[in-house]
């Protein structure tokens, strides 16, 4: 009997939770705020869904069907997050400096 592809995705999901668990515990507490802003930025990878939604079945004469419009809206939201999230993380991380010897 063939294994349902869903099971593979579920395996990836569960394993990633474990990876996340160990990786996040190793994050130093002083960087917990950048951790939140960077996780926020990467969760905006949901933009791949938004792009598919925006472009699906669109042709020159009907770009803005209802389902496409929701896709476009999601693209704007996710883009704000991607740029805002990564840049603000970068800005914070630039500030962490060691003692000048």
């Amino acid at each position, binding site marked *: 009997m063939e294994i349902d592809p869903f099971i593979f995705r579920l395996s990836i999901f569960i394993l*990633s*939770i474990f990876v996340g668990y160990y990786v996040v515990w190793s994050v*130093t507490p002083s960087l917990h705020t950048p951790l939140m802003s960077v996780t926020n930025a990467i969760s905006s990878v949901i933009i791949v869904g938004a792009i598919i939604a925006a472009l*699906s079945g669109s042709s*020159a004469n009907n770009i803005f069907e209802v389902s496409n419009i929701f*896709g476009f809206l999601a693209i704007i939201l*996710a883009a704000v997050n991607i740029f*805002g999230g990564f840049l603000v993380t970068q800005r914070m991380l630039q500030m962490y400096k060691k003692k000048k010897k």
Partner: protein
Amino acid sequence: MSANLSALFYLISGILFILALRGLSSPETSRQGNYFGIAGMAIAIIVTFLSVGNFGTGFIYVLIFLVLGGSVGAFIAFKIPMTAMPELVAGFHSLVGLAAVFVAISAFLKPEAFNLGTIGDIKLASLIEMSLGAAIGAITFSGSIIAFLKLRGIMSGSPITFKGQHLINLILGLTIVFLIYYLCLSQSSNIFWGLVAISFLVGILLIIPIGGADMPVVISMLNSYSGWAAAGIGFTLENTALIITGALVGSSGAILSYIMCKGMNRSFFNVILGGWGASEQSSGTKKDEQKPVKNGNADDAAFLMKNASSVIIVPGYGMAVAQAQHALREMVDSLKKNGVKVSYAIHPVAGRMPGHMNVLLAEANVPYDEVFELDEINNDFANCDVAYVIGANDVTNPVAKSDPQSPIYGMPVLDVEKSKSVLFVKRSLSPGYAGIDNDLFYRDNTLMLFADAKKMTEEIVKSL
């Protein structure tokens, strides 16, 4: 681009995201980690364009919207003051949540585009995944909006509670489960819209009973939710990058919530069901008669610290409110010139989000190797001459160690009272968030400095 090839690229961006988090294990590697994250995102977006393969008019619009949203995001990222970081993160969470809802709606309206079946005949598994993604996304959205309003001060930070609140939440939660079940049977779009609407409502009701100082838990929790929402959509779209990211973000937020709850010695449910500020406030030791306190001024403080050999600074939310971090650094600089050894002690729940104080100190150019966590520095108070408490309160209260009746009993606190003298900058004697008196005010070795944190620190700098 073939589906297999793009799946491999999505896996690569997932791995880059893992490396992005891994980089945060130390400040030196963190910047590189952030670049990994950006690379992962770029790969995911480009691969999606190539696999959709539609470079017509729609593609131009996608680019326009991408640039539009991106410039708004970049503008915010450069303009936002560091003290406003908690509300920024809450605001960003709401956007992820809403984006998840929109993608789920789009998938529901046009399942063919995502290979999920046809309208009225969507695959059962996909239907469950997308409704979970939509529900959690909606809760994240409205919950984060409330958190944002509270942190921004637009809405009062005090808990809003009413009778039967928990019962209503329970009923609504069960309704969501029931609606998902019914949606699977009927495939009706009305049920789907109802599900989204009720989830928005749950998000609001879930966050309004939680008070200001519990925000570190709330923000971490919403962080976690935004991850689970992304994972739900990831299953719907059968996209590895989204599934991996969702799992990472979900567990990251959950761990942070756990750390924050532990920092307050409270269970997660105790916080979520609305705590301290609301119900237990009255049981505090307010009836105590007026006890004497020692009142000092900036010159006294400057004298004490100049003649000390070691000083520990204990910052809290009050420092962020008064924007006192730069003045504080100046004060420390002049102390160091006098040969005083200075370090900073940070309680896990100081401020309004995890790591809040560390970012503010970093902004003021305080080197991160002078800043210590509770466990690292707590023993040093006994050998320290002066503890300078600026904007912190409950996290220094010795009652947490001595009085089993106190609502904060058992909470890990900084042993500030063990230092030879304590300088406590505060505007008045009013109790802190937990609504209880701080025993530290009345100790013999405590000198109260009644003033705004920034003003007082500046005055001390002058008299140094």
